[in-house]
């Protein structure tokens, strides 16, 4: 752990097509997950060209089965479910990515500070213990009921409950690194605290943090969908997968496709992210891999 290995394989640095292929074969899950994610990203960016207007409603076409014209059928307002699902990809990816970045960044800062300063540690960790006792979805619901619904609030509300786990992870890494001789040497030679934290401790947290960030991302996407499904998430006028599913609830028995298509896409997205996460965990940290 003295040198930071960000598990990028030698194959990608020393480019030789053969070795790249060998690496890809060994890391099938990362490759498969990444390919799915890139496709979804493409869909999200190209949404205006791939789909029609997700908000346009034609009452004549209410609750139409999937057909040539409406690939995923229509909802109770005659809106094209396919268009709504395609646009929904954007919301899920934005939420997943933003929450992963936000929660990891805040968690990283708190975790490093906690691992380094014992006095701060005692207080912050008690707060984290308390936050971890609150079910994530309820904490998010409480925040959203108290504020006006907007995508930004949803992102913030989902990020907060994700922070404690990141803090714990970073803190445990910092604590184990701190005990190492080279940190002692750095302290003895008069290096400033901030410099020790940034230069010597931070790099060690990178590998486990990347893995953790993928899981945060997957869980954020599921939570956003869950919140929207419950009516406490993304404002209903925005076509997110959770909102589409939420509207499909009433007509589930006669129009199951409204729930089915966004639900399956949601599952595929989360699966892809988890595949990347599991793959990264196995390559970056064999120790955790064995434990899982």
């Amino acid at each position, binding site marked *: 752990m003295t040198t930071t290995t960000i598990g990028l394989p030698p194959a990608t640095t020393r480019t030789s097509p053969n070795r790249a292929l060998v690496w890809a074969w060994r890391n099938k899950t990362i490759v498969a997950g990444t390919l799915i994610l890139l496709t979804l990203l493409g869909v999200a960016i190209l949404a205006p060209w791939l789909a029609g207007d997700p908000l346009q409603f034609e009452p004549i076409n209410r609750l139409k089965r999937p057909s040539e014209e409406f690939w995923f059928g229509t909802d109770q307002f005659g809106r094209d479910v396919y268009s709504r699902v395609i646009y929904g990809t954007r919301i899920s990816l934005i939420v997943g990515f933003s929450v992963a970045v936000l929660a990891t960044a805040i968690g990283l800062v708190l975790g490093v500070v906690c691992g380094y300063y014992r006095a701060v540690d005692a207080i912050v960790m008690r707060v984290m213990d308390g936050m971890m006792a609150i079910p994530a979805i*309820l904490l998010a619901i409480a925040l959203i009921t108290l504020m006006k619904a907007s995508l930004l609030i949803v992102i913030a509300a989902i990020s907060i409950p994700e922070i404690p786990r990141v803090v714990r992870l970073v803190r445990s890494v910092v604590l184990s690194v701190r005990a190492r001789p080279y940190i002692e040497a750095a302290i003895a030679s008069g290096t400033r605290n901030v410099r020790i934290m940034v230069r010597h401790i931070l790099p060690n947290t990178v590998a486990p943090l990347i893995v953790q960030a993928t899981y945060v991302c997957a869980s954020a996407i*599921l939570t956003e969908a869950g919140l929207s499904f419950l009516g406490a998430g993304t404002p209903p006028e925005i076509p997110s997968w959770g909102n589409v599913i939420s509207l499909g609830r009433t007509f589930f028995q006669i129009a199951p496709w409204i729930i089915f298509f966004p639900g399956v896409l949601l599952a*595929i997205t989360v699966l892809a992210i988890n595949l990347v996460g599991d793959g990264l965990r196995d390559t970056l940290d064999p120790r955790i891999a064995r434990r899982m």
Partner: protein
Amino acid sequence: MTAYILRRLLATIPVMVVVALFVFLLLHLTPGDPAAIIAGDDASPAEIEGIRRKLGLDRSIGEQFAIYVWNLLHGDLGTSIFSNLPVMTLVRQRLEPSIVLAIATLVVAVAFAIPMGVIAAWKAHSGIDRVVMGFSVLGFAVPVFLIGYLLIYVFAIQLRWLPVQGYRPLAQGLDGTLRSIALPAFALGMAYMALIARITRASMLEVLSEDYIRTARAKGVATQWVLLRHALKNAAVPIVTVIGIGFALLISGVVITETVFNIPGLGRLTVDAILKRDYPIIQGLIILFAGAKVLVNLAVDISYTFFDPRIRQ
């Protein structure tokens, strides 16, 4: 032993204090006037004033928190703004379905996941192992509502084996309750099952490579006996931990599952509270769920002493 339990018990106090403080401060740190937020967009100034007085928001913050904690200690979770009933009363009315659902899910998940994990570890890298691992990856990705609606579609609408939605109280007979809770328990239990199966497999794999397992086999102990008595008991600590951690997952899932299956439990209470912006109910439920989670963790900690006597010291 008693000292260990007592120490664990005391450790739950600061956690609950932080939870109470957090829930309390949430209302006060949110930008804007809490009374106006709770009253909603089209409330008149008089209504806002009424809510302010009812919630005691006109007092100082310290005083408010003291009153809040004092009330909590007396089992008073606050009063619903919309129905004017104590949150505790509302909770009591909705408690049964949620507890039945939680227990049924726990039983279903553990009953399926542990055998799955044990067999996968025993037959590591075989076809069965791959199926179990595949399931555990998939079970984690598929959202509760998708599984829920798929189960309803197949077992209730197509096959007509089980009721589509709703809940039959225990008072009307166990049979009806079990039938109404079967699909929700499986839907909610899927992710939980995936988690427990994965950890059971990993933990068993580790234990099965130990010398004493080889010794047991060498002296001719029957395979199932080795797996259960020698391996599973020693692999239990991580498994029990994950069952405890997973309980949190379960609580969050309860809210969504109850909405999918139209079960009038605490989850429905939460959803109704969201629609009416009835913050005291949500506040009360957070305290309640957090308390439940802390108690489960405590039970998990205590159960360690059974599986691993070294922890008792």
